[in-house]
């Protein structure tokens, strides 16, 4: 693996440009001009061999990886456009185009797809908001206040979140079924119950991420506001929350995606088909051996993935920034 090819000419200049370009990506994308600032020291005649050794082979790697990344996606989009396809019928890519399978999965009385979709959006949305709110409250107090048990609290959060709720699913099921006997509104088979279980993980790795970001906001801002007569609630809600908006977006998105993806707890707690989420409903649908309508499933998959992918691409620069901050840390 020939990793780094020395750049002829001003290497340091190029590498400095590289760092700048990254800052463009994550923090001020609007400034990014074209693909990259390029400085070519001297004009030389084009030489294919040299070009290939320096950048051409990178394109080959890129194309191979893009094919690898995209081919399941192309496959599922193609079969969703197939008007009436089984799994075999979906193999001829884009042979037939039509939206019939979308209509089928939305109108089939046996498959409450629209309900699953709405359930998923509600559960994941409320969980994301709750996680951000509870996590931001906690992160604020850890970041700005010094109190007995602060260090203990931070360590506890790190340690507790090492044990995923997944492992305690039996206990969660039994707890929620007991609660359901006493308070049917928040027990087994209710969305509120599931959201409460998810919020149990609100003070976890996300709080830790937010805590790091809160620390980057200078405390002098708080002090100035305090001198001007703002109380702690006003400082938190009107000043700090606005300054840390990027990390709130990242945490909300990560929490949203993980709730959309969550299968185990949802499948155990949500019993009625009508109440289930997309992950539970669609998984049970295709694991049913009698279900042969692959293109209807594909249509469902495309519709389910679309909002998440759109959100992801929309917030991409923040996510990349968030992950990178994690990596740098």
């Amino acid at each position, binding site marked *: 693996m020939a990793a780094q090819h020395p750049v002829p000419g001003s290497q340091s200049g190029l590498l400095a440009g590289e760092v700048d370009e990254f800052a463009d990506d994550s923090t001020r994308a609007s400034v990014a001009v074209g693909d990259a600032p390029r400085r070519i020291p001297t004009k030389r005649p084009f030489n294919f061999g040299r070009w290939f050794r320096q950048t051409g082979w990178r394109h080959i790697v890129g194309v191979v990886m893009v094919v690898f990344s995209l081919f399941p996606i192309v496959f599922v989009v193609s079969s969703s456009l197939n008007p009436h396809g089984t799994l075999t019928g979906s193999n001829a890519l884009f042979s037939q185009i039509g939206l019939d399978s979308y209509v089928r999965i939305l109108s089939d009385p046996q498959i409450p797809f629209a309900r699953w979709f709405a359930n998923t959006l509600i559960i994941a949305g409320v969980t994301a908001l709750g996680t951000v709110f509870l996590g931001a409250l906690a992160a604020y107090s850890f970041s700005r206040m010094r109190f007995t048990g602060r260090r203990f609290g931070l360590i506890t959060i790190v340690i507790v979140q090492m044990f995923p709720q997944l492992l305690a699913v039996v206990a969660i099921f039994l707890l929620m079924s007991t609660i359901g006997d006493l308070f049917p509104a928040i027990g087994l088979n209710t969305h509120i119950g599931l959201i409460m279980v998810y919020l149990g993980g609100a003070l976890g790795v996300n709080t830790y991420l937010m805590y*790091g970001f809160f620390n980057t906001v200078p405390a002098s801002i708080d002090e100035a506001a305090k001198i001007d007569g703002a109380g702690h609630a006003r400082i938190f809600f009107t000043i700090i929350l606005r300054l840390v908006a990027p990390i709130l977006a990242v945490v909300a998105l990560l929490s949203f995606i993980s709730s959309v993806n969550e299968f185990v707890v949802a499948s155990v707690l949500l019993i009625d088909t009508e109440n289930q989420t997309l992950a539970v409903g669609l998984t049970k649908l295709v694991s049913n051996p009698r279900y042969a309508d692959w293109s209807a499933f594909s249509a469902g998959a495309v519709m389910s993935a679309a909002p998440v992918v759109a959100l992801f691409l929309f917030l991409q620069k923040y996510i990349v920034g968030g992950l990178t901050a994690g990596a740098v840390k």
Partner: protein
Amino acid sequence: MSTTIEDGTRQDAPPPKPSRRQRQAAAIADAASGGMKVFFVKLIALAIVDALAVYAIFVLIAHAQWVPMVVVVAVTAVVNWIYFSRKKLPAKYLTPGVIFLAVFQVFVLLYTGYIAFTNYGTGHNGSKEQAVSSLMASSLERVEDSPTYPVTVVEQGGQLGLLVTDPDGDASIGTNDRPLEPVSGVEFEGDKAVAADGWTTLQFADVLARTDEVTALAVPFSDDPNDGAIRTPDGSSGYLYVSTLEYDEAAGTMTDLETGTVYADTGVGAFTAEDGEQLLPGWQITVGFDNFVRAVTDARLAGPLVYVTLWTFAFALISVASTFFLGLFLAIVFNDLRMRGRKIYRVLMILPYAIPSFLSALVWAGMMNQSFGFINQVLLGGASVPWLTDPLLAKVSILIVNLWLGFPYMFLVCMGALQSIPDELQEAATVDGAKPWAVFRLIKLPLLLVTVAPLLIASFAFNFNNFNTIYMLTDGGPRDSNAPIPVGFTDILITMVYKVAFTGQTRDYGLASAYSIIIFIVVAIISIIAFRRTKSLEELN
């Protein structure tokens, strides 16, 4: 965002302790700035919380749930104290999250520990009294030559009951849970009671619509389960049914009246005959370390536990390694400014990371289908490779799919880490005459590993419990037909826990929880070692 480091350390230095005057001033400022609006919002929120708590307390008292009642009272009191107090500022911000954390993370963890020491599961999910009444109810047989009781199906609060008229003409009412009791305000139609105060009489059409529920009704004749129960096959006439089992409460034994077999409570949570035959359902008891002992010594269970554990480690390690190296390789390849279109490549390559993983895994499962899948049919020209049904190939398939799911994350992370390495190092090394490969291997890679190591550990922990990939792709299959639990050759520990607890004919919560505890211990040990190594906890000051 990369300023986290320096700011973090600066922030963490404890500020000087404020003097008394400063604290007074802060308190006055706080009180003055809050205003009445904030105060009312707080008051209303607390009023709602308290109202819900009072409701919950009444419900808990009605069900005689004393321990949860005391907990609710205590928590409500503490919450009120915190939010009405002038101080306790950190607590005001921490309490909401901590309550959820305490109930749904810490408590369920401890509860998992408790369940692991019981025989909780199918056939053992209630108290001994419940087991007795359900055994008696399930072995009812009609008494020959017994009188016919005219009955009317009635309903109260969604629960069905029977309004029974004695041969003497007295009416009484009972449900599955409540033995027959005389009622007042009865309306007769001929000799038959047809309505009673507080109960809704079901019309004929309703009875037909709910036939299954009606025929399942067995209203105990009295408090003594040996007296039998009234059942109705048609919703209009009832007959006395008596159990073929006789319960002797003093001796704690069940006697089968037909065969004469005596089943005694031998302390295993079920009535057991001398030859070891058990009457199920039994009841829940604490069994000590039985589940753990069973998991590691029962040959049919220990075998699967060993290969599942080995595969779990192999899966997690190979997944982390493969995604990391592919991601790193790609980060290096695309970390070259002379290359055009890097952004487009990047967006296209992180698409697998943006799609919900359960969907991707289901789509891959379709593509890898042995007879109809895209890979066999199109890419391999009609081959019949058992991608998901051969024990070894299924593992390979899982690793390939997990590589597809995971490499974009590592790509992004490595990209960020590479760019944060100062260029001076590379310059200095180049000036000293180092070749690019040496610069990478001796300088960049070690620096990169320092920053990425915590994420690799987190990724290992994630894959260790990566339920979705396994469950959606192979469902743990191919199934191991020798094991008494529904386990397969690609199951990892967490999918095994799920299957033991929630699928198959018998659910064994006790065994599943014991497996959970074993995983807890393994994860804890790994985490402690890993954190010792990376000293990540040093950042927590």
